[in-house]
């Protein structure tokens, strides 16, 4: 019950982590099934229909329900602590964001149990995703599930923007913010601008499918290419929503374990902003083969290549952060160090893809599959592993086993390289993506087998990480404030895990790497910016949960509003939108309750402020 009603950013981080981890596991199992099917030519491990459902759900789940929530988990756990805040700006809204994400994700995955998962690819290009060519409810689950889950992301992004703008500790100017906070800030800004696009796209597709509109139907005056534009105007910035937080994590981990401040801090900030800006200018490079014409192709080729410049700045800054430092190879740092060359690999193939005539060959082949897995797995997932190993003691008060962590790194890393390196060549040799099987003797056989073996090894790596978590959880929570001894930012100045109110006294920030600065001045804790006093806390409430349940019910009701259940009662309920109305009533009722009942929260008095965290 405590977990359902919580509005504490640290507990919501744990909720995000558990839910994101759960969906990540589902997406991983889907990936393994795909690789089993492609292990040998003309395999019939799964049918063509199931294969299309697997690839669609693997992509959708991993992007929207796997890595994004884990990013949000890390952001929630770390950002308020890094800026010296007691919570996010809107704790209630933060909880709401989590619950809408969870119920959207559950709705999407219910499709496996309720007559067919979405099968039109994670990009769901029309007309294949229209009701004419995708007759099951699969794509409805996609549109409505993602809509609900996307609501949570948008809410979360706005919340982080407000938090970072308004709640930084005294003395923390923008140019003194830790890099992870900076990337969270920029990521949230991208979310703010990119998610409305997918929201609109999903509404249009829902209208086409459920209410019979013609946005993408040529016969009715629509245009299927419109979907591609809307999808990628969201979809390309989405890539940066994913990768920027990883950049932020790496920018925290590498300085800590090199015992040096980040090289070129201001150029890092500048590069991050530039990447975000360019991220919105390049969506059409996903559509070179759609037939945009020579001028558009030329312009989008060049704008895409330009992204290499800020990214290059970042890579060299990381390398020169380590230059002259004292590098310790902890598990967290192994992942961070492994990230750099792997991400560079993904980056250079990105520049290759930007060359439009060459992209006519690369597009929709395994070369692209290799490229984006190098970016998303080799970049983001390595970054997340790094961040989780790094901040685990802060979140849970327990340091993850270093030995197991290193085993995780090596199995995952080797498995990853085996899986995806060879896929570059598969693509160049003529293997298109999203195919359920392939004919023998096309030189695809051996490389596909290698790729599958690598995927199993990655699976072993993930299992080792889970084992590590289980073993660590059974140990006592005795991590010190600063378990890595070289922590630089504010979160390391308070106990692990932090008390409910984070900072007994808001700290005074005197420069970049505030805590490191105090340590170098011979202090053991931050200089407070305020006297000890009564701390105001928001009240716990089940309303965000109830609102999300309402939306979930309304979504299901809308999806089945045209179905014949062969049962007068059920037909009456669904076909007259009664279920939709009930769901919306629950949500709006909870909203009204929230508006009308004035909750002032509560206070923790100085005598009740214990130093150590109270939760696991």
């Amino acid at each position, binding site marked *: 019950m405590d977990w359902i009603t919580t509005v504490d950013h640290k507990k919501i981080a744990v909720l995000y982590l558990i839910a994101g981890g759960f969906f990540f596991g589902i997406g991983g199992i889907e990936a393994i099934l795909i690789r089993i099917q492609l292990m040998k030519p003309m395999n019939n491990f799964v049918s063509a*229909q199931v294969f*299309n459902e697997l690839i669609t759900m693997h992509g959708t789940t991993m992007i929207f329900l796997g890595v994004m929530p884990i990013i949000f988990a890390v952001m929630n756990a770390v950002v308020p602590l890094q800026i010296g805040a007691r919570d996010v700006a809107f704790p209630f809204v933060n909880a709401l964001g989590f619950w809408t994400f969870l119920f959207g994700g559950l709705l999407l995955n219910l499709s496996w149990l309720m007559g067919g998962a979405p099968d039109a690819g994670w990009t769901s*290009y029309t*007309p294949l995703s229209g009701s004419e*060519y995708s007759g099951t409810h699969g794509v409805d689950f996609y549109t409505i599930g993602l809509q609900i889950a996307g609501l949570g992301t948008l809410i979360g992004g706005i919340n982080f923007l407000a938090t970072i703008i308004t709640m930084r500790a005294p003395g923390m100017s923008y140019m003194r913010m830790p890099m992870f906070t900076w990337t969270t800030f920029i990521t949230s800004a991208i979310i703010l601008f990119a998610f409305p696009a997918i929201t609109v796209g999903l509404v249009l597709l829902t209208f086409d499918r459920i209410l019979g509109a013609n946005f993408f139907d040529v016969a009715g005056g629509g245009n*299927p*290419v419109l979907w591609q534009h809307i999808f990628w105007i969201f979809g390309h910035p989405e890539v940066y929503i994913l990768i920027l937080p990883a950049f932020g994590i790496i920018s925290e981990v590498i300085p800590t374990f090199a*015992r*040096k*401040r980040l*090289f*070129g*801090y201001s*150029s890092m900030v500048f590069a991050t902003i530039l990447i975000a800006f360019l991220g919105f200018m390049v969506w059409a490079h996903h559509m070179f*083969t*759609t*037939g945009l014409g*020579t001028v558009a192709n*030329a312009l989008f*080729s*060049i704008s895409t*290549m330009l992204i*290499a*410049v800020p990214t*290059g*700045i970042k890579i*060299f*800054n990381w*390398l*020169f952060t380590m*230059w*002259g*430092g004292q*590098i310790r190879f902890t598990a967290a740092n192994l992942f961070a160090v492994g990230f750099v*060359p792997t991400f560079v*690999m993904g980056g250079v*193939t990105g*520049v290759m893809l*930007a*060359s*439009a*005539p*060459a*992209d*006519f*060959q690369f*597009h*929709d082949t395994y070369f692209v599959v290799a490229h984006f897995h190098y970016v998303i797995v080799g970049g983001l997932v390595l970054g997340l592993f790094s961040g989780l190993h790094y901040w685990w003691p802060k979140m849970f008060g327990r340091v993850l086993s270093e030995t197991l962590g290193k085993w995780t790194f090596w199995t995952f890393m080797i498995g990853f390289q085996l899986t995806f*390196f060879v896929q570059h*060549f598969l693509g*160049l*040799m*003529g293997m*298109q993506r*999203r195919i*359920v099987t392939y*004919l023998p*003797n*096309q*030189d695809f056989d051996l490389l596909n087998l290698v790729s599958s073996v690598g995927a199993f090894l990655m699976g072993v790596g993930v299992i080792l990480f889970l084992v590590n978590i289980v073993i660590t959880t059974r140990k006592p929570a005795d991590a010190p404030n600063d378990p890595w001894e070289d922590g630089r930012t504010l979160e390391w100045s308070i106990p692990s895990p932090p008390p409910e109110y984070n900072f007994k006294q808001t700290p005074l920030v005197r420069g970049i790497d505030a805590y490191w600065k105090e340590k170098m001045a011979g202090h053991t804790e931050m200089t407070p910016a305020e006297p000890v006093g009564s701390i105001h806390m928001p009240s716990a409430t089940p309303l965000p949960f109830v609102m999300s349940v309402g939306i979930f019910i309304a979504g299901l009701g809308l999806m089945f509003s045209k179905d014949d259940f062969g049962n007068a009662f059920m037909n009456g309920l669904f076909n007259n939108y009664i279920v939709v109305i009930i769901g919306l009533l629950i949500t709006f009722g909870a909203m009204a309750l929230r508006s009308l009942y004035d909750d002032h929260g509560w206070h923790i008095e100085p005598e009740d402020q214990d130093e150590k965290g109270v939760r696991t």
Partner: protein
Amino acid sequence: MMKQWQVAKRILPLLAVFSLLLSACGREDLSVMKPQGPVAQGQYDLMKLSITIMIVVLIIVFAIAAYVLIRFRRRAGQNEVPEQVEGNFKLEVIWTAIPLLLVIVLAVPTVKTIFAQGEDLSNDKNAVQVKVTSHQYWWEFTYPQYDVTTAQDLIIPTGKKIAFELKTADVLHSFWVPSLAGKMDTNPDGTLNKFSFSAPNEGVYRGKCAELCGRSHAFMEFKVKAVSQESFDKWVNEMKAPAVLPEDTQLAEKFKTNCLSCHAVGDQGGPVAPNLTGIGGKQSVAGILLNQGEGQEDGNPVLDNMKEWLHDPQSVKPGNTMPNPKDLGLTDEEIDGIAEYLANYKLDYE
């Protein structure tokens, strides 16, 4: 020992890149890395340029990374705090300028190639015009200059430019012959795409559908057969010759009523399904069951393929719209008879 291994670990993938590149793996009729025509060659040249630039970048980054990781490990007893360096304006300008320069080096030939290959040949009298229509899950090729329509095997004369106009009859597909040219999507009316390629050498090239188009996306393959101008002209004439029907009149009647309502042979039948004229001489049955013949070392006899297809089309291409001949009331003998007729229906043009 440990150090050397670290170095090897960084260099091994690079060596692997080089060796794989040099071997230029893949089949000649399929691989992007073995281009068989000027368009694919142009694209391949661009790839080689970008790969070279990128490998140089990789070598530099990996070398710095390897050096840093080995040189600046924390050693036992090393407790003094390293100097906290803020950054270095000159260095940062250098690694802003160099990528910018590399991007320019790549951007110039890219833009050149885009405009060179974007040439519209749809009014060029010297080019062979081909209208490609993609269907779930087969390809239709119409030659408006010759008033000929065929399916699955695209016959083209060598050396001539082929100007394509692409469209789809249902969902989006993508027309791709890796060894001849990059792919282009087939959109519905209103956003038709045009592009062109040519094949200097005679041969059969494998084509693929590159855009997810439903259950049988993987099986939506086709072949491009480049033949001499003489053979091509002969082929056109053969295609326009009156239809050959089964000799057995009873079977011919069955074939007409059951098959020709959708399919066409010669001057008879309908345009809904693939044109069957000369189907016995094609490279494959249904695009995916390879027939025995030149360059198809893994093919089965065309008759076996035809029988496999006709006895259960859904198991070969799930989700295709052809009704099962058994459901049309044809007996096994009749199906075999039609299979035999079709397998022997060959055009003589080579």
